[in-house]
């Protein structure tokens, strides 16, 4: 936090520091920007991984719902604009509202495809993307939406002399809180234990008299809640545009592939790896960031398809 003091120092002082530790400050700022990208990916991919781990459904429409969350946050922010706290309220509101949508989707649609083949499930959730993206267009229109940030996260902060978007600190913080919260939930609570048991063997959980369909519904709702939270956190980063979800869903898949399906720790590590690869390849090979990410993903799938922390049980 010493750096906060530097921030208020004179410009020449700052430049002196920058000159002295140019490489380090640049690397550190890239590291933080990669970390915030990783935190965002973690918020999205953790829900995806949770849903896949428990229900064995790879939800192609996860990022489309994430985008709905971003638009919902924008709408809530717009309604609450007179109040200073509007952004901080609209993010959790978006998550809650999207959870309700997720609940309805599970009850009406997802429930019907549990016993279908993998390809049918993939194509079904793929078709959901078309519907959701088109509904977004109908409801919110084609114009980009932008949230005006409150002053506290409006200007960059200087950490070791390198500028960093101060909102990124909030993103990293949210990612960390969710990671710890999920870890606590899965390893310390009764329902968390049930979910972990369901990842391992649904038949056994069912045999113990636990209503698996109910577990499915709530796991799906939890996953979509995380997507809504991620969407809300994403909303003020740039402008919200149609089709933003297209690239994000594939990156979330890559995160889950690298980390391992159904592993929370794996998803966390995978998110950070992908975020950092992106941030650092900007320094060395600006056009190659995405290429590098897919090279890493392909190598991982070839040598270790179940990922860093996954177990090779389902193919």
């Amino acid at each position, binding site marked *: 936090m010493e750096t906060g003091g530097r921030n208020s120092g004179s410009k020449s002082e700052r430049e002196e520091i920058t000159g002295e530790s140019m490489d380090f400050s640049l690397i550190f700022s890239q590291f933080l920007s990669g970390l915030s990208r990783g935190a965002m990916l973690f918020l999205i991919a953790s829900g995806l991984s949770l849903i896949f781990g428990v229900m064995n459904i790879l939800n192609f429409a996860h990022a489309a719902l994430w985008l709905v969350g971003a638009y919902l946050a924008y709408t809530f922010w717009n309604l609450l604009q007179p109040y200073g706290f509007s952004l901080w309220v609209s993010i959790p509101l978006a998550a809650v509202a999207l959870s309700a949508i997720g609940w309805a989707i599970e009850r009406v649609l997802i429930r019907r495809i549990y016993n279908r083949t993998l390809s049918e499930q993939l*194509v079904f959730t793929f*078709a959901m993307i078309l519907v959701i993206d*088109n*509904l977004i267009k*109908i409801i919110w229109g084609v114009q980009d939406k932008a949230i005006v940030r409150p002053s506290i996260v409006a200007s960059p902060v200087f950490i070791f002399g390198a500028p960093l978007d101060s909102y990124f600190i909030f993103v990293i913080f949210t990612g960390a809180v969710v990671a710890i919260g999920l870890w606590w939930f899965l390893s310390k609570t009764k329902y968390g234990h049930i979910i972990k048991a369901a990842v391992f063997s649904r038949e056994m959980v069912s045999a113990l008299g636990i209503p698996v369909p109910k577990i499915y519904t709530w796991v799906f709702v939890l996953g979509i809640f995380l997507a809504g939270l991620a969407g809300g956190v994403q909303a003020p980063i740039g402008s919200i545009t149609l089709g933003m979800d297209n690239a994000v869903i594939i990156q979330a898949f890559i995160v889950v592939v690298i980390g391992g399906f159904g592993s929370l720790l794996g998803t966390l590590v995978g998110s950070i790896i992908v975020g950092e690869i992106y941030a650092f390849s900007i320094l060395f090979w600006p056009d190659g960031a995405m*290429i590098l990410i*897919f090279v890493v993903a392909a190598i991982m*799938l070839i040598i270790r398809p179940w990922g860093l922390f996954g177990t090779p049980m389902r*193919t």
Partner: protein
Amino acid sequence: MQWSHNMRFFQSYAMKKQLWIIVVIIIAAILPTIIGAFWINVAVEILIMGLFAVSFNMIFGYMGQLSFGHAAFYGVGAYTVGLLMAKLSIPFSLSLIAAMLSAGAFALIIGYFCIRLTGIYFAILTLSFGQLIYYIVFEWYSFTGGDNGLQGIAAPHLLSSVTAYYYFTLVIVIAALIVMWYISRSPFGYTMRAIRDNANRTRFLGINVKRYMLINFVIAGAFAGLAGGLWGPFNQSISPDLLNWTESGIPVFMTVIGGSASFLGPMVGSIIYTFLNAFVTGFTQYWPLIIGIVIMLIILFSPGGIQGLIDKWYKHSDSSDENIEL
């Protein structure tokens, strides 16, 4: 009694289907004299996308694996034709052959890794490779034109009218379909079905499962490349979006609509998908909404697609696991 009854039904059904195909080809041949230029364009699109979808179904229907990166081969074919014609002025016919070869070569490299995996891992690895090639094409401005794509890919003078291009595409697509049909009916095609239904048992019979899968993957990739090669001069420009994963979804949708259990199912799917697309976008911009709902309804209520429905009506039975029908 029962058996001969079924047999009779089956024969008349098969004959009816053959009759239908002849009728469709005759209709296709006289089509340009009936419809206007707009719908001839739609018909060309149906043929090209249908070829793309049938090639996808070589992997999906006959090998039992869902490829989510098939657009990579389609795009490689399109870019091969585009680059050869625009930069080196190579004739269209030679460029088309080159498109098949280059897409096949890409499929050989990518397939070498992909066929080691099955199920969800196969789907994601094909998706990853597809996106890898997409981003390379997208970023490599000096060679591929980056996100601007390539413009001004003109068909040769002889094919410059839309009707001529339609007939040219019709002949190429029918020839390609006949080749793929014979492959699917050959011992090789039946080996693929055996691998799909039980890879382990097929391996016990002494068959090199991986090599068969790789050959099938290359064949499918090469024909997707041919379809892509036909697309460039038809559209007169190409863009990296031809390789994106959303493009890979189109043959998947067509196959789901038409039915993966029959050889021509994906072509039927292409007719329905492309026609609906052209028709619906005429009066509303909500095409994705409509096609999305249609796909979801088909999966929920008629997993065999349109062909599955037709087969059911004809056969009055559900024992259609032979997968040998046209």
